[in-house]
């Protein structure tokens, strides 16, 4: 029984050791087939049949021409302009606004680009600016709290809202993964069932960043006593 799990082990070891992901996955598939008693021809046929019927999972490519042109004509620049135009009184609230925008953008398949393009150059300076305005000055500990919170907001918005778009690669993976196990579902329905998690993630994000402001209050009080 245990030997049949060798494919799972290969994927785990391969990804931990940072081997090439595609080669690791294909190798795991072939070895799994072999220990499962399949012939090489059977394995290639199964692999090929499934790959062709699951081309669904790569449909996102069809959205790239339009997105590419929008980016060429300033999509990301206008998103940055928009975020910059919103002033918030505290660091936590600044991060909440960003997370809300990031969540909506992800749900509408607008790729905002993440940590290098938004968090570092836009969100962190705005949040730290709000904190400096409120507390006078901020020390390294406070700055770490803000930066960790801002980086997290980017991930929450990105991860938990992207499946609300029916053409995202995650949604399509779910559709084709279920189809391969004999459960035919529509991408639109998977996207609908992804909405509750996106909403809950946003609510949790708001709570988390209200707490972040409290954390900063405490850290500022402690810093003042030094």
């Amino acid at each position, binding site marked *: 029984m245990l030997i049949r799990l060798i494919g799972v082990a290969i994927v785990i070891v391969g990804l931990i050791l940072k081997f090439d992901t595609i080669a690791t996955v294909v190798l795991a598939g072939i070895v799994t087939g072999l220990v499962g008693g399949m012939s090489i021809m059977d394995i290639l046929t199964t692999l090929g049949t499934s790959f062709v019927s699951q081309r669904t999972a790569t449909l996102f490519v069809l959205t790239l021409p339009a997105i590419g042109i929008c980016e060429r004509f300033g999509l990301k620049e*206008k998103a940055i302009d928009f975020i910059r135009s919103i002033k918030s009184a505290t660091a936590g609230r600044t991060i909440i606004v960003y997370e809300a925008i990031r969540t909506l953008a992800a749900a509408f398949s607008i790729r905002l680009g993440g940590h290098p393009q938004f968090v570092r150059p836009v969100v962190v300076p705005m949040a730290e600016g709000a904190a400096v305005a409120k507390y006078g000055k901020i020390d390294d500990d406070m700055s770490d709290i803000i930066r960790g919170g801002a980086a997290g907001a980017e991930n929450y918005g990105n991860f938990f809202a992207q499946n609300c778009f029916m053409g995202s*690669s995650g949604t399509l993976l779910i559709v084709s993964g279920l189809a391969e196990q004999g459960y035919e579902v529509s991408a*639109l329905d998977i996207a609908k069932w992804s909405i509750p998690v996106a909403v809950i993630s946003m609510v949790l994000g708001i709570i988390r960043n209200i707490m972040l402001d409290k954390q900063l209050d405490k850290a500022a009080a402690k810093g003042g006593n030094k």
Partner: protein
Amino acid sequence: MTPAQILGEVFYCVIGLVFILVGVKALKDDGCSKKATTAAFWFLLAFTFIAGPWVPKWLVGAAIVAMAVLTAIGGVVQSKNDVPDPASVRANADKFGYKIFIPALCIAVVAVVGATLGSKVPALSWLTANNAIGLSGAVALVAAILLTKCDPKYAAVDAARLMDNVSTTGILPQLLSALGALFTAAGVGQAVSYYVSMVVPENNVLIACFVYCLGMALFTMVMGNGFAAFTTILVGVGVPFLLAKGANPLVVGALGLTAAYCGTLCTPMAANFNIVPAALLETKSKYSVIKSQVPFAVCMLLIHVILLYTLAF
């Protein structure tokens, strides 16, 4: 073939064409050190998309193995891209303003409206969810060209540029579904469920929900890849312990992947999301981002268990 299938194949041919463009771009780039192997990868991939349904399937399988060899030897690299220069992008941003969001929003809106109409109106039955995604890409492209009045060649240039940025890992979801098929054919699901059934009492769905969500998160933490974890745990736990007991596949599928993402928030293995940003933001510890995310991830995972238990049954 039904009209829906014919249209579907047309869209897959368009995707194949994008792959060919990436390959041709590599061939034309004399500065690219691995242009032959890079082009070979993209052409093989295009072959599986365009000719896949019409050729013996072992041939597609062989093409996949060849592609894996090419990436394993590091033979597939990015070639030179026509990157728009920042000054002209800025000038265009000022010229077009927030209108540039219209084509981008078209994608999501047309896809949802199209798929909904397709499932409700009999005359539009060719508009399956998949075809609606293709249609949304086409409508958005037309909107983008009409709005910006740009040379339509940029549709090809920018598609190749973005696809090259996405790189070879763009086919990972599709490849993992194929791995899931092999896992199932070789009895991996039975093996995993044999061991899981030692822990999970027969017919206790609450514990099964918990093991499914936790399994997703833990496997993602170990592998650093939510997609790979999703395939494994869906086959090993989701199918035998939830779907076979009558759980709603939509809920099991949708919540499975986001449960995996809870694991992504907690692991240094997902370096791009956690370690690289910490370095980029110059935090004191490289684990600052993870530390900040763990409480959120734990809450979120528990909520997943509750949602799965209440919504799926």
